[in-house]
């Protein structure tokens, strides 16, 4: 597959501020506005595990071609507090700019308690090295000396002006718009079309017209100010673009929520946890939805009367803990419903026992697992891919499961549907691995990417009467036994976490035991045989290369972008493992067996997919590019690291960028 090499434009914007001051929503406004102006957009959110006061920031990359990651360079930094500038000024490139609050230039580094001591020392060191003091002005001076343009904005004065226009004299009420003003200032500097910004405001604040109108006023005021106070020659601009396909701007948790509804998931349990909860809250909000009642509906066999309605509903239960969440989802799945639960690391740890029960009783249940910084509570709002090996081996004993991981949002959409299809076809629990980077990023996706799909439910038996009593765990050639929902006439059965006979009754007979283990575990072989290769491994880049990248999950975006940026002279094959268990050993082996270099790129300490590779094929990665500081890879980092590997054959590169 060829990588896009005809990109003309890539612009990186960042906004920062304290949690609770609207950084997030202003970034969404900006991203929407840029998308509305015709760009492809990718946005990454960074925030502390804190509700108010700690620093958060959002990086948004806009381009004329699809973009899948952030880059290290910041072209324009928009800020309205001092901390953002202290933290991020050094990331702004020569020729870039910093928008900041004119009134804050006297702020001193040592008075900002939310900057970690280590970082403060680093910043101070840098300033001292340049003979500077520790005020915001010093930081700005340093930036300026590197060729960065400064855009001081008198926010308070401007807000007062807005207040006069809209008839609001309370400064505290007006202050809530300072974030929007930072965006509008950006638009002014970038010579961009304000109407897109207004669309962004309407999109972001939805129904709240009054707020939108107020914010529009604020935009106008600051836009005028910028236009009349700064020269109009900033090297970057965001002119309207045409020709892009229709897109949506969406985050990972929302697209997975939509996919669950589309897949027919009708029962979702959860216990609140970052970042999985957003998906669940989305589903709670969309509890009732439209269905196409005019199509030739297939009713579940237990629906004795066929009720025709054009509204479907999903039951979403906030449980008392994750143990209840997994087990309640399993209980629901037993009735024939597509059921799932969404969680993150700590919650997933609590599901180990329930997962084993589902495996033992061959219940199709889907666990959507958004990885985050770990171990333990770890870095709850930060990124990591640290739960792979745990997902593959969760739970005591041996039972079949499927572990899949999505590389980006579109994959997340289809993988969600596949997860349910696999679960029902093979009657196994499916762990769908996502992560914070997918969950909390926003991206423009082409509407045309959402294509038709099918729902495969596997062998479901109806209410038909047969001569012999129903055997839920009938030994068959494939290991898959026809499944009946609870409540089916003539199909009474039992389930137990104990080893059982074909009816589901406890059975300790050694011969039965061996058979049942083989029945269950044998399904893994069937899965390997039936699931198409392309759903197990995706190959990108140059297949003929001797240099291969091995990776999985959300690193995909940054790797693809890096490969594009590397350009000719660096050709790599990129093997993205999509099904991590059962591991596609044969496929992978056949491709990698002759590779000269296998570069394992992962966001964890131990190169977990690399370890799975070795376990399943005997092949070892030759080099590692790893990152475990809680921040997703930028494409710049991967590009740099790949060059380093190619130049110096460095065996283990640990990246540590990102604030």
């Amino acid at each position: 597959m060829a990588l896009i090499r005809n990109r003309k434009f890539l612009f990186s914007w960042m906004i920062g501020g304290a949690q609770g001051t609207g950084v997030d929503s202003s970034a969404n406004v900006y991203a929407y506005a840029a998308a509305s102006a015709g760009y492809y957009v990718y946005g990454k959110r960074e925030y502390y595990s804190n509700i108010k006061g700690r620093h958060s920031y959002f990086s948004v990359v806009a381009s004329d071609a699809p973009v899948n990651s952030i880059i290290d360079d910041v072209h324009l930094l928009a800020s309205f507090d001092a901390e953002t500038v202290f933290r991020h000024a050094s990331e702004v490139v020569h020729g870039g700019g910093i928008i900041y609050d004119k009134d804050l230039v006297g702020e001193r580094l040592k008075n900002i308690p939310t900057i970690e001591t280590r970082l403060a020392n680093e910043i101070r060191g840098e300033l001292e090295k340049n003979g500077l003091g520790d005020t915001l002005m010093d930081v700005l001076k340093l930036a300026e000396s590197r060729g960065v343009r400064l855009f001081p904005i008198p926010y308070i004065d401007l807000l007062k002006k807005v207040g006069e226009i809209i008839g609001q004299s309370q400064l505290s009420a007006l202050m809530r718009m300072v974030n929007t003003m930072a965006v509008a200032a950006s638009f002014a500097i970038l010579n961009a079309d304000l109407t897109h910004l207004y669309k962004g405001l309407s999109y972001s604040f939805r129904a709240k017209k009054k707020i939108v109108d107020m914010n529009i006023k604020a935009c106008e005021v600051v836009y005028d100010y910028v236009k009349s106070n700064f020269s109009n020659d900033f090297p970057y601009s965001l002119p309207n673009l045409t020709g892009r396909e229709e897109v949506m701007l969406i985050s990972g948790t929302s697209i997975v929520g939509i996919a669950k509804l589309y897949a027919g998931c009708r029962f979702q349990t959860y216990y609140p946890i970052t970042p999985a909860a957003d998906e669940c809250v989305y589903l709670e909000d969309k509890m009732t939805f439209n269905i196409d009642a005019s199509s030739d509906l297939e009713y579940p066999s237990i629906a004795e009367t066929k009720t025709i309605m054009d509204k479907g509903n999903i039951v979403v239960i906030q449980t008392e803990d994750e143990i209840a969440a997994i087990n309640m989802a399993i209980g629901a799945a037993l009735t024939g419903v597509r059921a799932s639960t969404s969680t993150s690391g700590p919650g997933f740890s609590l599901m180990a026992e329930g997962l084993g029960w589902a495996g033992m009783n061959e219940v199709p249940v889907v666990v959507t697992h958004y990885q985050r910084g770990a171990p333990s509570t770890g870095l709850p709002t930060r990124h990591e891919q640290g739960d792979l090996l745990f997902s593959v081996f969760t739970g005591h004993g041996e039972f079949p499961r499927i572990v899949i991981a999505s590389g980006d949002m579109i994959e997340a959409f289809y993988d969600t549907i596949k997860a349910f299809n696999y679960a029902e076809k093979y009657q196994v629990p499916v762990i769908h691995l996502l992560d914070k980077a997918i969950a909390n990023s926003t991206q423009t996706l082409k509407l045309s990417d959402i294509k038709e799909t099918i729902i495969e439910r596997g062998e479901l038996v109806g209410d038909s009467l047969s001569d012999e009593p129903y055997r839920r765990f009938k030994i068959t050639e494939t290991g898959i036994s026809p499944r009946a929902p609870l409540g089916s006439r003539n199909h009474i059965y039992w389930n137990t976490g104990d080893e059982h006979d074909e009816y589901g009754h406890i059975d300790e007979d050694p011969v039965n035991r061996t058979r049942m283990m083989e029945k269950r575990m044998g399904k893994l072989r069937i899965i390997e045989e039936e699931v198409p290769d392309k759903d197990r491994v995706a190959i990108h880049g140059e297949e003929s290369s001797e240099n291969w990248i091995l990776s999985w999950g959300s690193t995909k975006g940054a790797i693809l972008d890096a490969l594009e940026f590397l350009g000719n002279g660096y050709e790599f094959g990129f093997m993205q493992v999509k099904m991590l268990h059962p591991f596609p050993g044969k496929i992978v082996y056949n491709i990698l067996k002759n590779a000269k270099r296998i570069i394992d790129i992962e966001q964890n300490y131990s190169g977990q997919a690399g370890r799975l590779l070795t376990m399943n094929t005997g092949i070892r990665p030759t080099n590692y590019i790893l990152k475990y500081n809680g921040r997703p890879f930028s494409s710049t980092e991967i590009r740099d690291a790949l060059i380093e590997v190619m130049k110096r054959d460095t065996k283990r590169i640990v990246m540590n960028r990102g604030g």
Partner: protein
Amino acid sequence: MATQQKLTMANFRSTANIDWCPGCGDFGILSAIQMALVDLQIEPHRVVIFSGIGCSGKLPHFINTYGIHTLHGRPLPFAIGAKLANPELTVIAVSGDGDGLGIGAGHFVNSGRRNVDITYIIHDNGVYGLTKGQASPTLRRGMRTKSLPKPNINEPVNPIALAIIAGYTFVARGYAFDTKHLKELIKKGIEHKGAAFIDVLQPCPTYNDIMTKEWYAGEDLIDSATGKPRPRIYKLEESGYDGEVKSEEEEEVISKINMAIAKSYEFGDRIPIGIFYRNPFTPTYEERITSNSPTYPQLPPAKQPIRSKSMEPITIIDDLIDEFRVK
């Protein structure tokens, strides 16, 4: 439903070999459930019995209904999941006292808050039977049953009071060896709309050598007048006690709660069985879901079509996607 033959006990017997100890109270609970289902004439395939792990956990295997023997302490989440997905099922959950009140205590409390229309029965034998007789959460402090190297140092939990505080809207106690009375409780529990909890005193002749059948029968309490044992167990309904909440008024509810809790502490020479508390006014969880999701009663999850006969999804997501469409 076509006219059916009348269901008898035989319809509710499974072929699995019952392997409880001779004289175990679990036999009484098993029959009481089967008898209740016969009385209510619920077809076997419309019933699902969930259980946890323990001697008690084996019960569903012995009944010819759907039987889901879950994990230790977890029958409630499983049962609630199934019931909410298909509210037409008659759902019964059973636990041991360790299962329901030890490892399962968190679910016990939080399930009360939901008031899902299920019936939950705890086999209260004072011991962890299947792991060979350790103290269960209902064993009283200072007691030393057969297998304990030292007397029990935990205070017992009061299952009746806990259930009431947790929000169960039907709270009763039965005795495993008064099968008829227990059957009636179970019937009422099933008929009750909401979460019904029944604590069943269950002698474990193998490990609980204190709270034995003889002890419940008061064989150590000889009435000096008659020279006969004074049974510990007596029936609330025969004592004039009435735990039924008569109106939605907070005052009435709280007074009944208080009365029931006071009663629940009676446990010694006299032990009441029967209904301690019943509140028919609290809406069920199913009703509450309906208030947010009006199509739920007609099309609960298990009854919803999700694809066409040609396997295409039938959920319309265009409007959902449109909310994110860049205009």
